[in-house]
């Protein structure tokens, strides 16, 4: 038995993007909007911009430069940098040379860099600066397929030989090559097809090895068009780009949507500065992960608390929340609604203007579950925050609430052209032109996730109400999704920690949380032996597990594990639980299978403490 939600519009979207590649879109933008600003960034205190004609020109120069470095059709160019113009130009340069641009997270450990670079067989890596280089240098020998490194900023040392060049040199090489052969890049561009690979997003697999999700030009443009129709987005929107380009949400929300709708994107290199960029750019559409919206909310509440008009403001907020909640239940509160209009004029219009959110027509939260109360708060302030659902494997947006149809607590309805279905066990399945081609070089995993009917198995469990709104009720796969929308596979981290005696079990915690923590359970016998070896007193496991010397020793083991992980995967805090996980305790089944959820429930008090302060 399955529940279908059919949505008209798939063929229309197919037609809208037929025979179109990112190359065609950029060419069109340069021709039609040549003088309009495309990308903005700050250099020191000054704002700089490129219009579409200039943007395209430098992308072609970058493409030519990459071709002189030996980049060929079907190759991959790896990029590790913040959100700055060179990042986008590098990506489009790769595209125009017939290759794909793949962004790596800035926080990856060297061994993770090696894995990804070798998996996608990147020929060239374009890095932001020497800080990135410091992590690549020690493992260059382990990436024999990597031929060149391009540094966006910083000095390239003479001893680097031909392997390393600076960004300016890449562009100069490209200009020279185009002078010698004006049709150089055109000849490559001619052969690029909609089903060619445009990018890959590396996402965590349950056994710890990242999987490269493969996207064609068609996947990306189809998804952008679906979002355009769903949200009713006009052209030339102002957008702020600040989340990692290694995440599908950012690539889709600013880069691909930016191209498809000829938007002007303000590139913010440091997510901590996003508020300043919003105030300057006054974006018309904005995407954030729950953590970002939480921070905004905290900042606003703190500001309200210091405002001399705080009683009025908090009255306005509570009133607004009442109106929103009533509307959710299908009721309208006459008096509160009238008051809300007054408060809109007196309070909220100014609040939004102060934030830079006075032009915001579309505000989205995604990548991890959001607290419904937080969504109510922003809607009360006149910011139409909607929760959106999607995965890397669905090119991002698949299902979403809209300002006109926002059922808080659900993730909305399928976007145009997208269909969803619930499998027998409640797993959410997605079909549409946004479903990615598969995982790079992983035929078994691909077959398991992308079935032969063309449906994506999301690994999330859902329910659909009588009006067609989807709610995500649980997760099938063993993945942690932090509040920042980062997917983390607990397995390699747990395994590494468990190899230390006297650790018997490790349970990694981090779902919807801002960082990872761990519950560690010891084996009583091994703990006793270990205590003897270290000259510590052992009376019973309960008291032993709380001894400062024991905790300190465990910290050393945790630090060792953390050294091989990226910053977001590191275990920030841990607790050694006072009991043994044996069948009698109920924490494991008689056959020693761990009951993870039961354990998390049992120790929820201890876990909550690790996230306070």
């Amino acid at each position: 038995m399955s529940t279908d939600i059919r949505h008209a519009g798939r063929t229309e979207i197919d037609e809208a993007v037929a025979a179109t590649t990112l190359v065609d879109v950029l060419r069109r933008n340069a021709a039609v909007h040549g003088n309009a600003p495309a990308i903005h960034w700050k250099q020191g205190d000054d704002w700089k911009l490129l219009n579409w004609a200039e943007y395209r020109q430098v992308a072609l120069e970058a493409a030519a430069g990459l071709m002189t470095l030996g980049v060929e059709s079907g190759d991959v160019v790896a990029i590790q940098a913040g959100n700055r113009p060179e990042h986008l130009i590098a990506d489009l340069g790769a595209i125009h040379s017939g290759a794909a641009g793949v962004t790596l997270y800035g926080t990856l450990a060297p061994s993770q860099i090696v894995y990804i670079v070798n998996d996608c067989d990147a020929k060239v890596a374009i890095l932001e600066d020497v800080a990135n280089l410091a992590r690549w240098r020690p493992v260059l020998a382990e990436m024999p397929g990597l031929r060149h490194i391009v540094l966006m900023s910083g000095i390239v040392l003479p001893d680097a030989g031909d392997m390393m060049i600076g960004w300016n040199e890449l562009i100069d090489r490209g200009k020279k090559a185009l002078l010698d052969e004006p049709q150089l890049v055109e000849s490559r561009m001619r052969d690029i097809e909609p089903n060619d690979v445009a990018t890959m997003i590396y996402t965590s697999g349950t056994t710890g090895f990242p999987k490269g999700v493969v996207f064609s030009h068609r996947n990306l443009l189809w998804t952008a068009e679906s979002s355009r129709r769903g949200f009713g987005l006009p052209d030339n929107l102002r957008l702020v780009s600040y989340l990692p380009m290694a995440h599908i949400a950012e690539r889709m929300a600013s880069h691909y949507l930016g191209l498809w709708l000829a938007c002007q994107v303000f590139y913010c290199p440091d997510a901590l500065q996003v508020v300043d960029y919003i105030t300057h750019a006054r974006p018309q559409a904005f995407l954030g992960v729950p953590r970002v919206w939480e921070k905004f909310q905290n900042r606003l509440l703190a500001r309200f608390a210091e405002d001399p008009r705080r009683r009025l403001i908090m009255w306005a907020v509570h009133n607004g929340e009442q109106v929103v909640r009533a509307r959710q239940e299908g009721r309208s509160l006459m008096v509160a609604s009238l008051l809300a209009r007054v408060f809109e004029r007196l309070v909220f219009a100014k609040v939004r203007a102060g934030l830079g959110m006075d032009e915001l027509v579309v505000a989205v939260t995604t990548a991890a579950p959001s607290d419904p109360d937080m969504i109510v708060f922003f809607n009360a302030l006149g910011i139409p925050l909607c929760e959106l659902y999607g995965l890397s494997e669905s090119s991002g947006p698949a299902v979403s609430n809209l300002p006109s149809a926002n059922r808080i607590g659900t993730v909305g309805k399928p976007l145009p052209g997208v269909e969803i279905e619930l499998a027998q066990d409640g797993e959410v399945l997605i079909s549409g032109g946004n479903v990615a081609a598969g995982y790079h070089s992983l035929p078994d995993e691909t077959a398991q996730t992308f079935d032969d009917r063309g449906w994506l198995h999301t690994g999330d469990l859902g329910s659909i109400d009588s009006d067609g709104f989807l709610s995500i009720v649980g997760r099938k796969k063993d993945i942690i999704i932090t509040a920042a929308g980062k997917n983390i596979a607990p397995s390699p981290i747990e395994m590494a920690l468990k190899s230390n005696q006297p650790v018997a079990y490790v349970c990694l915690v981090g779902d919807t949380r801002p960082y990872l923590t761990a519950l560690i359970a010891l084996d009583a016998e091994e703990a006793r032996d270990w205590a003897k070896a270290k000259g510590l007193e052992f009376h019973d496991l309960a008291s032993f597990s709380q001894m400062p010397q024991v905790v300190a020793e465990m910290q050393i083991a945790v630090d060792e594990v953390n050294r091989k992980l990226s910053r977001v995967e590191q275990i920030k805090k841990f607790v050694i639980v006072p009991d043994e996980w044996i069948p009698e305790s109920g924490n494991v089944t008689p056959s020693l299978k761990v009951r993870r959820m039961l354990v998390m429930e049992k120790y929820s008090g201890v876990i909550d403490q690790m996230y306070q302060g």
Partner: protein
Amino acid sequence: MVVLDDGTRVLIRPIRAGDKRLLQEGIPRLSPQSRYLRFLHYLERLTAAELRYLTEIDYRDHFAWVAISLDQPDQIGLGVARYIRDKTRPTQAEAAVAVIDDYQCRGLGRLLLTRLADSARENGVDAFIAYLAPESPVVNHLLQNVAAATTSNEDGLVKVIVPLGSDDPGPGSQAMLRAAAGGEAEFISPARQVGTIEGEPG
């Protein structure tokens, strides 16, 4: 002694207290995925206490059969199937199976389970319980193909109860038994074998 479908010669016998090393050495021969399907966490080793628990059994409330290779000079353990009686419902027992990756899909799991089911019935057990990870391919197979097993969600795990029936279970029940104990992927088409995911370390 038993010969598998592909000619491999295997000895199947009840587990003994002296089999601790056998079990410990079997862990690295299980891929991380197979380990997860069996234990629902990614263990590297079994502790001394766990090894005692798994090998010093009473053959009544806790019974286990091991399969040992006769084709290899060092007789390595190839698989284990065990049941442990549920204290609160003594006619039910939790069953679990693990077969090392290199020997999966050769009928070994099925064989071990058949022996285990016989021992279970002899000791007054009439149903096996299995706890499976929701993402286990076994669960999907169960839901689609095996009508008689009851499944429920318990603490995020899928709990399956399979009645053992009397005498020799028919092919339907065989499928149920295989599916219920997990860790075996015989019934899944060759293109989707568990434990052969590319990119994993040896």
